[in-house]
């Protein structure tokens, strides 16, 4: 739904300040008397703590306090579940072991805090960490995902009987029926690697306790300020009104910043009260790799049943998901994997089952994509494997099985991360595929280019895959809109921003409704002092869920303005219009009142107020979708492989995506580009590697390969498709994760296609040249 501003590529309100460095990120905050924290972290992945000697550390000049778990006493408890268990799924079982803010008796992953130092500077705090001596009794580390799930494996949590943290089985139709009716069943095992969110700004927190006012202010680049406020208040026995969380400018989120009740916020809020001094902790990159959360690793056993003509009858997936040492985020990621495995294809029989497993690794919580890329990876790889067995073209097998544009809403029968059955609300998957195939020049590549280049000795290949992006899940978000006496508008919402352009796209929605300029709408996100209800920025839901709440609140303000103006202008509401910041009588434009004047009049200072009236040109609205809006699309890629060194160059990438109405197409494209980069990282470069003792061996950017400019495809072409979602008035769907979802699957297919002479088949992501080499050697029987 286009408006004067919605659907326009408007330059961002936030840019002039950001581009000149005139903004406040977390580590820019300086407060009088502020102290600095550093954590002493476990060197072992799994060990009993025999003794911690902090006496030397406490003596160091400049050190204010050193605390171990014992010093915190009863305050140390496992944190709350951040996400509830999926009780809506019949038979789902789980064992909750939530995050401990500081290790008590035992460490469960390398990097887990065992002590915290508060000092006059971060330099001194780190010096003190070096003077803390911990005696450990090392235990066998639980590292391998599948072995961890076996009976008799060493236990991450002594009292759980096994490392199984959860189990879910879902089925629609009957897999056995599918096998019975099929001509062919293909089986494969897949491995998905772990990757980091790796936002450019690390996590961090500044806590200030005002001992006189009994109020706490927390600055934290969090994706969920309200959960942080509420959990902090509950833990410390304070009212929510005594705690204000401000999410300052934040240098990217990508998932890991969603977590609350982490060691830093739990321990430093306590210590700020205890020490009556503000405390800052800005995570360093090593800590970010070791002890913030990350995501991805799964092992899948897949089967696909087909007819000879390529019609898919059934899909079966049995997989393991690595939860890490604790499971505060429950099953969001594997549920996302389940809902994104067959969502865009017409597959009558689908059985999906997973085990959530504890290991001695850092906690797994969503990272951009959050389970979706792996569901996509396994279904797309299985279609490739099936196509190969059937001698079918890879685009053709997809064409054959994609849902048609007439099949919506499509009920998937699979319950997702929002605990309701996944419903594909709208879309046009075949058009997305056809458009993509056309943009990349698939037929010409197959028929002319590839054979010609192959004859010249070049190994070029093409990959094409489809995806869906479940976005905009509930429960709800809200917004408050106030028109000021200056005629400008303030909108505040509970979600926070990490660079998505909310200060502009939200303003565009308001500007259309209230007939003001986008620059005259001030957007406040992530400050509980302004708005205190909501869930947070995750699951590509900001624009759709908070954006719709903003739209609804703006409509309320619009109606309120007209109602008040009707009295003042003595004209019926039906004859009034809101144009260019004034309410006027449509037929008598000279008869008007500005929004600013209306706002002043809406707060009468004398006289009587009408019963039932509410002051101010102000309104609050909430929006909660019945289920998420599903975005979708297709991607294609052309790669060239040096068959001797296995270096891969992505020559061309084409992608069609559908996020319903794009509020700001420029911002949407930027989101997709960023997602693609993360997808390229996932496909080719990024990998968190643990050794057999549970040590993370990629705890720096020297070893963890972050995609650079030269690693991106030389040419990226985006195509847009708009099937507005019927679930919300603007027809919105999210788009933040789209680019990251299909990329690993497309990359694997393209490289495989380039090297098809060898018969190689890839069954994992992060296809480094060495890994490609090993796969090819294996295919050649080496």
């Amino acid at each position, binding site marked *: 739904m286009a408006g004067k501003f919605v659907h326009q590529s408007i330059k961002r309100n936030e840019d002039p300040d950001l581009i000149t460095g005139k903004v406040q990120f977390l580590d820019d905050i300086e407060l009088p008397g502020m102290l600095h924290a550093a954590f002493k972290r476990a060197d072992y992945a799994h060990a009993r703590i025999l003794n911690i000697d902090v006496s030397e550390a406490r003596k160091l000049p400049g050190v204010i306090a050193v605390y171990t778990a014992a010093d915190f006493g009863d305050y140390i408890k496992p944190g709350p579940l951040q996400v509830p268990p999926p009780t809506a799924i019949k038979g789902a079982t789980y064992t909750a072991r939530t995050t401990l803010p500081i290790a008590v008796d035992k460490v469960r992953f390398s990097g887990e805090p065992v002590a915290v130092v508060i000092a006059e500077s*971060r*330099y001194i705090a*780190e*010096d003190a960490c*070096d003077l803390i001596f911990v005696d450990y009794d090392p235990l066998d580390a639980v590292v391998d995902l599948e072995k961890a799930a076996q009976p008799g494996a060493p236990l991450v949590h002594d009292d759980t009987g096994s490392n199984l943290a959860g189990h879910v089985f879902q089925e629609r139709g009957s897999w056995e029926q599918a096998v019975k009716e099929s001509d062919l069943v293909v089986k494969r095992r897949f491995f998905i690697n772990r990757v980091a969110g790796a936002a450019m700004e690390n996590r961090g927190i500044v806590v200030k306790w005002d001992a006189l006012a009994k109020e706490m202010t927390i600055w934290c680049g969090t994706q969920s300020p309200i959960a942080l406020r509420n959990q902090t208040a509950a833990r410390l026995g304070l009212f929510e009104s005594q705690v204000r969380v401000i999410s300052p400018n934040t240098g990217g989120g990508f998932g890991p910043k969603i977590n609350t009740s982490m060691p830093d916020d739990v321990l430093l809020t306590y210590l700020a009260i205890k020490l009556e001094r503000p405390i800052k902790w800005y995570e*360093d*990159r*090593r800590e970010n790799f070791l002890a913030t959360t990350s995501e991805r690793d799964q092992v899948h056993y897949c089967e696909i049943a087909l007819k000879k003509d390529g019609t898919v009858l059934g899909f079966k997936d049995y997989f393991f998901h690595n939860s890490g040492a604790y499971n505060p985020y429950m099953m969001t990621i594997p549920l996302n994997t389940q809902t994104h495995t067959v969502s865009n294809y017409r597959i009558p029989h689908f059985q999906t089952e997973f085990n959530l497993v504890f290991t001695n690794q850092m906690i797994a919580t969503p990272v951009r994509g959050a389970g979706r890329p792996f569901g996509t990876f396994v279904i797309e790889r299985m279609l490739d494997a099936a196509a190969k067995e059937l001698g079918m073209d890879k685009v053709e097998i997809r064409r054959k099985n994609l849902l048609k544009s007439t099949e919506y809403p499509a009920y998937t029968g699979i319950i997702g991360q929002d605990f309701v059955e996944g419903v594909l609300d709208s879309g046009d998957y075949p058009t997305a595929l056809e458009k993509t195939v056309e943009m990349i020049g698939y037929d010409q590549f197959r028929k002319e280019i590839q054979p010609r280049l192959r004859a010249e000795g070049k190994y070029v290949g093409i990959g094409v895959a489809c995806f869906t992006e479940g976005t905009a899940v509930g429960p709800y978000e809200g917004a408050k809109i106030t028109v000021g006496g200056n005629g400008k508008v303030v909108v505040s919402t509970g979600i926070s921003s990490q660079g998505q352009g909310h200060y502009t796209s939200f303003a565009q929605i308001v500007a259309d409704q209230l007939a003001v300029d986008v620059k005259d709408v001030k957007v406040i996100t992530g400050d509980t002092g302004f708005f205190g209800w909501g869930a947070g920025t995750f699951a590509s839901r900001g624009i759709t869920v908070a954006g719709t709440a903003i739209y609804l609140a703006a409509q309320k303000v619009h109606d309120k303005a007209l109602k008040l103006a009707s009295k003042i202008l003595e004209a019926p509401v039906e004859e009034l219009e809101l144009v260019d910041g004034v309410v006027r009588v449509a037929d008598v434009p000279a008869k008007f009142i500005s929004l600013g004047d209306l706002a002043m009049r809406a707060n009468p200072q004398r006289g009587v107020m009408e019963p039932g009236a509410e002051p101010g040109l102000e309104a609050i609205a909430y929006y909660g979708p019945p289920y998420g809006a599903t975005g979708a699309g297709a991607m294609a890629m052309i790669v060239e492989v040096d068959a*001797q*060194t*296995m*270096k891969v160059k992505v020559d061309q990438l084409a992608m069609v995506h559908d996020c319903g109405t794009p509020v700001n197409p420029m911002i949407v494209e930027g989101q997709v580009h960023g997602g693609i980069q993360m997808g390229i990282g996932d496909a080719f*470069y990024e990998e968190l*590697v643990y050794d057999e003792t549970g040590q993370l*061996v*990629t705890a*720096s950017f*020297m*070893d963890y*390969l972050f*995609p*650079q400019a*030269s*690693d991106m495809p030389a040419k990226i072409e985006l195509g847009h498709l708009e099937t507005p979602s019927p679930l919300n008035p603007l027809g919105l769907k999210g788009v933040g994760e789209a680019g990251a979802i299909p990329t690993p699957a497309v990359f694997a297919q393209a490289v495989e296609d380039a090297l098809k002479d060898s018969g190689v088949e890839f069954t994992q992501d992060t296809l*480094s*040249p*060495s890994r490609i*080499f*090993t796969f090819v*050697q294996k295919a050649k029987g080496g």
Partner: protein
Amino acid sequence: MKPAPFDYYAPTSIEEALANLHELGYDGKVLAGGQSLIPAMNFRMARPAALVDLNRIKELFYIKPVDDGSLAIGTMTRDSLVEHDPIVVQRFPIIPFVVKHIAHTQIRNRGTFGGAIAHADPAAQIPALAVALKARLLVRKQGGQRWVNSEDFFLGPFMTVLEPEELLAEVVLPPMAKRSGASYQQVSRQKGGYAQAAVITIVTLDESNRCKEARVVLFSVGETPILSKAASQVLVGSAPSPAVIAQAAEQIARVEVDPGSDLHGSGEYRRQLVNVLVERALTEAFERAK
């Protein structure tokens, strides 16, 4: 990630620096460009008790052509200066080509030619370049100096013949022989990243187009830069045909190197890279020598 405390010395002359190093002994560590040292200090993997900072010693920054055609490079000469220096480009065109593969501009703007040699990172370009170009290294200490051939300089990863009180002061590169050609080949995961395997080749042809000399230096596949003996054995005296080149490459990959497996590549893969890269480098170097 903040470095541990250290004492700081900021000499303004070589003599003063040598006196500092003499006095400090094992406690002293030279700070040249610091582009490897300071990250290691930030991780607290390196904790020198004292740093002797050479950045204020003007007499260590130079590129001086010598009359016999060789080139003397002061130890503190920044990589980016070496990369763009017109005399370097003219006399040793291979140098800028290799140096531009060192990390990124920001690092080359601070990193130093001598510092990289003294640091002896087995994955670094400049130590290998020094060996390939038969560099002679002037090592000074208080009251004395010695010349060391680059081939004899490196003992192991981050280990050289330098004693704690010694300073690598100057690198002298002898002139390239007539009818010689050079090539550099590397494979790294990303531009500016560490090489998974790399080779510098410098070959010389005689009047009858037979190989007179073949210096093949591999790095990132062993503990120090590896000067191939097999290359000379196979190539010297023969006409550099594709078959001979392939034979040399295979010999080197199979016998002379034994790259281990690491995070980014298996030993087998990196051995294959050596084979491919040596073949490509020799082919190109011979082409350029003609």
